[in-house]
């Protein structure tokens, strides 16, 4: 197979694009796709500071590298989740990458700073581990981006992640989640803008980008994620993609272009109704945010009951 751009021998075939690329042209393709996503969805304006959620995996390290090579001022944030040896190893990959490139990496340690880890949180709240993990990461990344003065928070969600999440949301007609599923969530009170610059790249492209660029990432899967529903959706979608290349991109971008707006107003109403959590100040629909409730359950801490004083009636 030959490279579509320069006719040199190809190192990767992208059936969705009906193309093969050599290493140099493949890097050009990845940069072009990220730049196009940023411009198309107005993710990041010139001069803005971006915080990248970094896990030590291919997507987040690839994202950080791509943003930096596109001259975007991007720093990293790693959250230690206390998932045993896996967390220790993923932290090593994130730290080594940051050190080798001389790029700033912030760190937050969930057990050290909040007194519980993901397995604790999962058990105490009777939630699936990925649910407790996702909830904790969203809270800590949002909070760090806001308090440390960044303009946007960038996450490594790629085309395959979005296709799998969309598939799950459609299967259950989760209209609230469908309204929130978009490459950009605008800033509101208490939230910085959240952006997904990898939306036009599949996870196979991200893994290949890391191999080509010599980015050493953790290949092992998180032990808590094995067998989860999300992986089952990806397996099903990859089987469809194998028979019909381009299906995942058509599914995701068709949703953004033609369907998302039908659910977006519900989400906008939800976000407008948020109030500060009385424990930590993060935006929440209730009195105490989900992260503070999770932490209280996992650590056995009691959240004081709020006393509401009513004015005496005459």
């Amino acid at each position, binding site marked *: *197979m030959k490279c579509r751009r320069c006719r040199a021998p*190809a*190192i*990767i*075939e992208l*059936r969705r694009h009906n193309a*093969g690329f050599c*290493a140099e042209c493949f890097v050009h393709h990845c940069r072009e796709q990220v730049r196009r996503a940023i411009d198309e969805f107005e993710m990041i304006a010139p001069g803005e500071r971006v915080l990248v*959620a*970094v*896990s030590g*995996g*291919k*997507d*987040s390290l690839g994202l950080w590298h791509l943003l930096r090579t596109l001259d975007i001022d991007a720093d990293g944030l790693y*959250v230690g989740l206390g998932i045993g040896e896996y967390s220790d190893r993923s932290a090593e990959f994130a730290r080594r990458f940051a050190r080798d490139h001389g790029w700033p990496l912030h760190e937050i340690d969930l057990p050290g700073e909040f007194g519980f880890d993901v397995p604790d949180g999962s058990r105490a709240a009777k939630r699936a581990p*990925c*649910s407790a*993990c*996702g909830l904790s*990461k969203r809270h800590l*990344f949002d909070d760090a981006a806001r308090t440390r003065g960044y303009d946007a928070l960038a*996450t*490594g*969600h790629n085309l*395959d*992640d979005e296709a799998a999440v969309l598939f799950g949301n459609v299967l259950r007609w989760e209209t609230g989640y469908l309204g929130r599923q978009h490459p950009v969530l605008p800033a509101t009170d208490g939230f910085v803008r959240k952006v997904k610059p990898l939306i036009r790249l599949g*996870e*196979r492209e*991200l*893994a*290949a980008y890391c*191999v*080509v660029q010599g980015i050493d990432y953790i*290949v*092992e*899967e*998180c032990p*808590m*994620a*094995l067998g*989860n529903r*999300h*992986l089952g959706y*990806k*397996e099903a979608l*990859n*089987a469809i*993609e*194998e028979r019909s290349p381009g299906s995942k991109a058509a599914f995701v971008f068709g949703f953004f272009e033609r369907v998302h707006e039908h659910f977006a107003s519900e989400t906008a109403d939800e976000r407008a109704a948020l109030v500060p959590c009385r424990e930590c100040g993060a935006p929440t629909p209730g009195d105490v945010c989900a992260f503070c409730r999770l932490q209280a359950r996992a650590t056995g801490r009691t959240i004081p009951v709020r006393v509401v004083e009513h004015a005496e009636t005459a």
Partner: protein
Amino acid sequence: MKVVLRNPKRELDVAAPPNVDELLRRLDVVPESVLVIRNDELVTRDARLHDDDVVEIRPVVSGGANP
């Protein structure tokens, strides 16, 4: 040839099939879910294989809630 599989990491010694596509078919691996790295270089599905090759089949699907 030697085939390196991941998650968990293990190695197989197999007779080289004619190309990567045939290797993936024999191992019942969906090509969309992996990268194939032959002697430290990425290769496409039509790449020819030889008995002295070392081929890593690296999964690319991650299942956790991404950050």
